[in-house]
């Protein structure tokens, strides 16, 4: 065995483990699901078949495509709201906090909720938004409301709030990294050339942080798309999202073919978004070193 062959054997040894894992637990399940999505159903059985009825009903039956559109809308709202909230905060942490220790502390303060149970974090919002909750009590106390309002909890509004709260760290992380990478002398050079701070932000800092914004929005969008706990806890009757429907199809409705078709559509949407954002990111990626 010469050096090259030995190298190849070693490489195979390293790669084969993860590859086998991926094959067994990722590609095979996807393939199975993809196959199921063409099956037909005769309750309580599913019959091996190759037909597009499942996909067709997703596009024609309002109870499915409406949920899908709602899910896309909520995902978009969550990622936009996350950017609007997280960008100024992250900008402040990166550029306005002079002490390195304080900066790291604040960064971790934003990230640390990720280590707290999802359910716990979602439940805290029930105590904030509920009819006896903090928000209602406060609004009554300052006299804006006469009696508790029910619309805060169990609504799409509540879902957007809760999901934004839960997924915002995934936006802060890439934005933080991209802002931190911007050499400060670029900002100084802009000011040196007569450009005021706000225009400097628009012309230099913002464009150079676009890769981080894109990555973060992709995270929050895709994670929201797959979420089924928040709709369950705070969504209310009109707050169902696509993942809940999938859950029902594999559970009580016992319609695996339709559930598989739904999952395939979700997967396709997520893949399209990830590859599009990756493409934009690559186009804008610059050597800042």
């Amino acid at each position, binding site marked *: 065995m010469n050096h090259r062959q030995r190298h190849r054997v070693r490489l195979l040894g390293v790669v084969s483990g993860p590859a086998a894992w991926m094959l067994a637990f990722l590609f095979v399940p996807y393939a199975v699901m993809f196959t199921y999505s063409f099956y037909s159903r005769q309750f309580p059985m599913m019959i091996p078949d190759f037909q597009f009825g499942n996909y067709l009903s997703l596009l024609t039956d309002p109870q499915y495509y409406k949920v899908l559109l709602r899910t896309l809308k909520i995902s978009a709202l969550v990622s936009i709201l996350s950017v609007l909230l997280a960008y100024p905060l992250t900008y402040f942490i990166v550029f306005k906090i002079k002490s390195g220790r304080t900066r790291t502390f604040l960064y971790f303060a934003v990230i640390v909720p990720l280590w707290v149970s999802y359910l716990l974090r979602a439940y805290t919002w029930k105590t904030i938004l509920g009819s006896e909750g903090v928000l209602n009590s406060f609004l009554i106390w300052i006299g804006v409301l006469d009696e508790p309002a029910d619309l805060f909890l169990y609504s799409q509004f509540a879902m957007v709030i809760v999901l934004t709260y839960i997924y915002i760290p995934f936006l802060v992380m890439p934005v933080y990294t991209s802002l931190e990478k911007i050499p400060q002398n670029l900002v100084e050079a802009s*000011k*040196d*050339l007569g450009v005021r701070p706000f225009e400097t932000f628009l012309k230099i800092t913002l464009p150079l942080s676009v890769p981080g914004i894109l990555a973060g929005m992709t995270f929050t969008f895709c994670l929201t798309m797959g979420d089924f706990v928040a709709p369950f806890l705070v969504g209310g009757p009109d707050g169902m999202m696509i993942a809940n429907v999938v859950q029902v199809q594999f559970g009580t409705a016992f319609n695996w073919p339709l559930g598989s078709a739904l999952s395939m559509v979700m997967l396709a949407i997520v893949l399209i978004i990830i590859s599009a954002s990756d493409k934009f990111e690559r186009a804008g990626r610059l*050597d800042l070193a």
Partner: protein
Amino acid sequence: MSNIVELNNLTRRFGTLTAVDNVNLTVSEGEFITLLGPSGCGKTTTLRMIGGFEFPDSGRVFLDGHDVTDLPPYDRPVNMVFQDYALFPHMSVADNVGYGLRIAGVTRADIAQRVKDALRMVDLESKAQNRPSQLSTGQKQRIALARALIRQPKVLLLDEPLSALDLKLREAMQVELKHLHQKLGITFVMVTHDQLEALVMSDRIVVMHDGALIQEGTPTELYEHPATPYVANFIGTSNLIIATVAETTADFIVGSFGNARLKASSNGSKPPQGNKITLCVRPEKVRLLADGQSVPDGFNVLNGRATEQFFHGNAARIAADIGADAPFLVDMQLGAALGKSQLPGEGMQVRLAIHPENVTVFVEGD
């Protein structure tokens, strides 16, 4: 000539460190002035205070007669070439150069013309549509220069502009920058730690050390008449000999060290006998006497033993032990008159002749 830059009692502290300590400096219009010193001497902080990137704890900055101490960079009539050029990576070369004009409300056609002129000035018209990442270091440097000059600043600030270039390119750019300065007539304030660069390019050099201004003068003045041993050592090479005053006359100070004595022109100072002094002799001001050659009239003569020889191609340096603390360096031009084979080898006795005019005396505590 009027003063374009005036620094009054400028002080800047970072925590307990005083980066710039009570600096006073005036720069005349059209001058090429260099702040010279080792890293951490406060030269860059001083430059950044002129540019508006640092603000002094006390003291004032005047530009063209106006107090700009509290003005931000975008309200000052100066532009800076940054050490690593700070070109905007997401813009083309042309957009980089025109950046300061687009914001200033210059018309599109006018910008295009001025960008073209600026790129022609630095000989990089062909790169207008390239990204900065596609340029070599030398090209980036020229673009940074074009970008800073396009706004026709009253003062151009240069922060170690040539330090990232390799030797040949650096030497070429030194000449180019000097020519550009002569052509444009704009005041240049440069920061460097490279004494040779400062000597070659500047009309006037300001030597800084530990945040303070040590000496200012033309390159010749600084080289010929360094005010302190620090300046003598930083600019060019110097033989510094610690000695004791043996005798002081109206015209001369005689210092003694080891078994030797060295006579220096007094230039008015009269340190009392027995005082410690530092004698400074430039290596190229020493004459190596050939065997049997008589000592020229009025010269000092030192006897020593050659310890090392350094060959520089067209020149050579000899280190000799003359009984001082450090080896005594002698520089010689090699050529038709003096061949390398005629240099004293290791261990050979040498006689060195030095004119008293070429011995500078630093009195302790000066």
